[in-house]
């Protein structure tokens, strides 16, 4: 195994956004079995340490490829596109305005204990997010439009965070 190989090479799969998750799962389990510490219980110190490093590396690679947003970021990284998640704060004003409105609606529903409204917001956002992942698949896999994909990934980072906040609000109402 090669530490410098990218995550797709590690699992022996094609570097695409659309991927077969159950196939990825079984490939990950194969690698895990190969580097499992139990198999190195009687090996030397150096070999044991190496197997630990491999297990950690494979786990990180798996976590990255498993989640669509992380996978998209990774593909852009491989293609040499920096998403500037921390350094670039410029976003289209209409998108930011919409984000403000969403967040206001979530806060209002949470403060009013409106479970039903939060669920409605959750479902609406879920649908919006899955449509955006569909589009991202086309941009990354079919069209190789990386600049546009970078913009879409930046937007999705806000939406995933928002979804997380809605789910937190729902959980806090259930307590």
């Amino acid at each position, binding site marked *: 195994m090669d530490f410098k190989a990218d995550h797709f090479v590690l699992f022996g799969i094609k570097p695409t956004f659309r991927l077969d998750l159950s196939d990825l799962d079984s490939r990950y389990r194969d690698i895990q079995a190969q580097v499992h510490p139990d198999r190195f219980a009687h090996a030397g110190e150096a070999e044991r340490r190496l197997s630990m490093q491999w297990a950690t590396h494979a786990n990180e690679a798996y976590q990255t490829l498993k989640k669509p947003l992380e996978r998209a970021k990774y593909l852009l990284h491989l293609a040499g596109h920096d*998403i*500037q*998640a*921390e*350094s*670039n*704060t*410029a*976003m289209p*004003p209409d*998108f*930011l*305005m919409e*984000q*403000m409105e969403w*967040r206001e609606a979530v806060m209002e529903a949470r403060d009013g204990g409106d479970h039903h409204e939060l669920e409605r917001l959750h479902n609406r956002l879920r649908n919006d997010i899955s449509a955006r992942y569909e589009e991202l698949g086309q941009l990354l896999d079919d069209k190789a439009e990386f600049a546009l994909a970078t913009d879409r*990934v*930046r937007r999705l*980072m*806000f939406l*995933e*965070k*928002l979804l997380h906040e809605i789910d937190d609000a729902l959980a806090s109402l259930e307590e």
Partner: protein
Amino acid sequence: MSYSVKVIDHYENPRNVGSFGKEEDGVGTGMVGAPACGDVMKLQIKVNKSGVIEDAKFKTYGCGSAIASSSLVTEWVKGKTVDQALSIKNTEIAEELALPPVKIHCSILAEDAIKAAVADYKKKHGE
């Protein structure tokens, strides 16, 4: 992670929350967002005839550090000319609030929000 006393103070008693009408005379509006944390910030300045920022308002959806950073800069810009406001650096904000490295982007967000508000003001007022 623990917040500094100053962050908690601004978070619990944020200064200048709210907004001006976008079309109001002398108002510049800046909107920015940080994908890394999903924070969204709107910062507005109200500039008088002599080019001095009389008042500022903000609305931020984000973590305590983002709210504190925007609250702090609305205090700082008051009484400054628009060009003086442009000289505020994120490092000063981070230092004043004792932000940890993982929260530096909150101070970048606040610096960029001022720059965007000033740019909007200048655009509207033909500078």
